[in-house]
């Protein structure tokens, strides 16, 4: 009259194994679930009972108690339905105890006994290790990507009862091929003109440098940013798995293979709430946009329109690559190692035609606008690039620009050079390593000294410029041992060029 079934729960973006214990014994007919379930699990009672009855089985007229162990962890979600149903059937001796040995069950039940997908199957299966897993058919791709044991697919509870009762072999379901929703990655060759912004994208992709595009409306800031994921190399398997886990936990659609092996591109709207960008929630912690952009690009269009609180909350993930979301009942770390790309207008009026003297904004309006983005956030952007409206000749030019393939090859070579040299992206070169991995030649040193002396560059900016210059040198020649004057000049141009736009002190 007792059964113990393996299942798993999703906490944040990681799975945790859970043992579903079922006891069916004497007493008034009742059905209770213990072990800190939330409302969605308590509702499982009605779903499971209906599903079992719909599958042609009897519901015990006895006292049914379910315990979700370990019981001190708060649990949520409808993914226990299948495990509970199987547990009840084992406890009432419809199924044998041996038949469920070495199997774990994840899935939600419909009242008609159908098995439905839940979010977070990938991290949950991942946490179950070697055991075979039974999952809904629709979750097959993500489960197969992470599973170490066999992945069994079921469509209905009755089918599962037949298989476990040795009436039939495991069915051979294949999830119907879904239309691929992933839009083809936009190509760099479609960008006309904009040599500086193109170069900035290349540098950002190669060194992982956060980038801010500033330009009048219609200058192509969004179009540029959307080309960035194509320049990033495909994700290595470890990183791809991390991303897949987060995307699965958030319940967003995965590619047909189940594995997210391209860098994600997330572009939340500026009205998005703190929770949707950073992650969180009151009981259930869901990954936010920063985590969905893990190993990819987080694009904030019109960054000045985002609430200051949301922008300031980005500082910690930008620094640590992880978001720590704390709630009264749960503390969760979510991965959030992303490349930040943002776009904004130079001023509220959009800068007129973009030339000097074209802006019609009042001083006070300009000040308010530039204050919307705090100094610490502006400081995070290694590359601050003015984007001008392309000339008509450039728009009409028929000669295509360099394509993504060509640029991505240079990016890959530069990333490899960085990886071999210091084992990390150039963005994360430690200050004490700069002289070793990014030595300056004498001309380059003179340029930086001049900028520091004329107070146009701050001490912090100095280190950031050196990292960007290292990336520029890597792109120019992956074998370059030292950083030349032209590399530093270009890095400076991209760091200090817009210092008058952001009145954040004198030095950049």
């Amino acid at each position, binding site marked *: 009259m007792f059964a113990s079934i393996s299942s798993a729960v999703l906490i944040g973006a990681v799975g945790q194994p859970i043992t579903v214990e079922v006891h069916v014994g004497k007493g008034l007919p009742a059905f209770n679930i213990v072990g800190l379930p939330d409302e969605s699990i308590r509702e499982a009672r009605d779903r499971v009972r209906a599903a079992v009855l719909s599958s042609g089985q009897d519901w015990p007229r006895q006292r049914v108690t379910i315990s979700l162990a370990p019981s001190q962890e708060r649990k949520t979600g409808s993914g226990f339905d299948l495990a509970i149903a199987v547990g009840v059937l084992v406890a009432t001796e419809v199924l044998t105890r041996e038949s469920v040995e070495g199997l774990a069950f994840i899935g939600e039940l419909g009242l008609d006994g159908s098995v439905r997908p839940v979010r977070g199957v990938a991290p949950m299966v991942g946490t179950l290790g070697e055991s075979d897993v039974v999952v809904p058919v629709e979750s097959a791709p993500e489960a197969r990507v992470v599973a170490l044991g066999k992945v069994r697919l079921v469509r209905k509870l009755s089918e599962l009862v037949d298989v476990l009762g040795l009436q039939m072999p495991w069915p051979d379901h294949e999830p119907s091929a879904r239309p691929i929703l992933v839009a083809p990655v936009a190509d760099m060759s479609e960008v006309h*003109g*904009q*040599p*500086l912004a193109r*170069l900035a994208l290349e540098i950002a992709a190669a060194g992982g440098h956060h980038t801010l595009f*500033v330009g009048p409306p219609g200058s192509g800031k969004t179009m540029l940013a959307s080309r960035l994921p194509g320049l990033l190399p495909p994700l290595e398997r470890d990183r791809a798995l991390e991303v897949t886990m987060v995307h699965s936990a958030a319940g967003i659609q995965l590619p047909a293979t189940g594995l997210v092996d391209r860098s994600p591109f997330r572009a939340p709207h500026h009205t998005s709430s703190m929770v949707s960008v950073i992650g969180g929630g009151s009981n259930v912690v869901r990954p936010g946009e920063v985590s969905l952009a893990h190993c990819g690009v987080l694009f904030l269009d019109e960054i000045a329109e985002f609430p200051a609180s949301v922008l300031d909350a980005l500082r910690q993930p930008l620094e640590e690559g992880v978001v720590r979301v704390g709630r009264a009942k749960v503390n969760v770390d979510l991965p959030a190692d992303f490349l930040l790309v943002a776009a904004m207008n*130079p001023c509220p009026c959009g*800068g*007129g*035609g*973009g*030339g*000097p*003297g*074209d*802006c*019609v904004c009042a*001083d006070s309006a300009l000040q308010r606008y530039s204050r919307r983005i705090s100094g610490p956030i502006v400081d995070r952007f290694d590359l601050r690039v*003015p984007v*001008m409206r392309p000339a008509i000749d450039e728009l009409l030019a028929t000669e295509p620009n360099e394509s993504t393939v060509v640029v991505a090859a240079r990016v890959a070579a530069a990333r490899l050079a960085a990886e071999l040299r210091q084992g990390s992206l150039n963005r994360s070169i430690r200050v004490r390593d700069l002289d070793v991995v990014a030595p300056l030649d004498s001309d380059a040193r003179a*340029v930086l000294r*001049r*900028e520091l002396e*004329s107070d146009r560059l701050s001490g912090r900016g100095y280190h950031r410029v050196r990292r960007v210059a290292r990336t*520029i040198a890597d792109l*120019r020649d992956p074998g370059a041992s030292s950083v030349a*004057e*032209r*590399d530093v*000049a*270009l890095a*400076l*141009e991209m760091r200090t*060029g*817009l210092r*008058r*736009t952001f009145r954040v002190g004198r030095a950049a």
Partner: protein
Amino acid sequence: MEPMTEGGAELPQGAYLASLAGFSRMTTKRLSSVLAHLEPRDAFAAAVGDVRPPPDIAALLAKDPELAAAWRADKSARDPARCWSQCLETGVSVLSRLDERYPAQLLDDPAAPPVLFACGDLGALDARRVGIVGTRNATQRGRETAAQFGYELASHGIVVVSGLAKGIDGAAHRGALAAESSRPVAIVGNGPDQPYPKQHAALWAAVCERGVVLSEWPPGTPPDAFRFPLRNRILAALVEVLVVVESRERGGSLITAREAADRGVDIFAVPGPVDSRASAGTNQLLCDGAAPAPNVDELLMALGLDNRRAGRSRVDLRPLPHGGAADIVRLCREQARTIEQLSLLAGLDLGEAAMGLARLEHQGWLRETGGWFETIDVWGDLG
């Protein structure tokens, strides 16, 4: 009862003028009618309702009961003794139309301010006077032109009159101050004791010291937007020749030009590129019949002075650019350029262009604003 100062001495009439000029919702017209038939002291008493007002003040207050209430409250809010000590502390003199120092040019003006507040020496207004005005959001070239005009006019002993605003106004005054023994005049839209914009504090102080800062508002008046168009008429009335250096299709400097035209003042405009928004207004002025002012000589001729250049032109100490750098300077001198345009036009890659620009910027040849590079000429440090 007469208000008394601490020492017991009676307050001068200027104290009441300073108080009245700062009353709530005070306008030139209201102030004129309040002061029309009464001494300032009696006008003050009438305005705050201490004595029965004469018919024209009574009519004014009857029309607007809220105004009457506000002015009654101003009796203590604008206590004449305190207003007077504020004037004394800030070194601001109060001039009524009866004062002999009141600028003679304004006496016949239909919209003359009944009271003027001055910080500095009004003797500056006795010389020949040219107004230089323009947009606050000027280009580098516009500011340089203003500075050059200011310097060269001041070198001829001509008083440069401007508004001490950002952009063209400030550059004109900086240029004028660079000439020895020049006496610039500024007409401002807030209290003459309060530098605005803040970054012009030093410039403001220099104008006060060498020339004079004039305002129709008493010390402590904040820089409200509505006051600035009003000061333009005073500026227009005070100058013999007005030159607009840069202006948008609409702007305060065009208001000044219109006011000046109404008063028969010669108007000059500096021609600018047809596609530059900062020159749209000045080019329109030229179409409408203003005289072009490509250099100061035209202005001097309009004043009836000969065009012999009394001031030496400034010496350029910057190392001359050569090679690719000279190309970059030449291109930027034609018009403002972006680094992308420069790399394309000069045939340099972006790295070389950035290198050249960084050097030129350091040597003081170029200046960057929002991604646009403009050349700095020999007047650049004043612009």
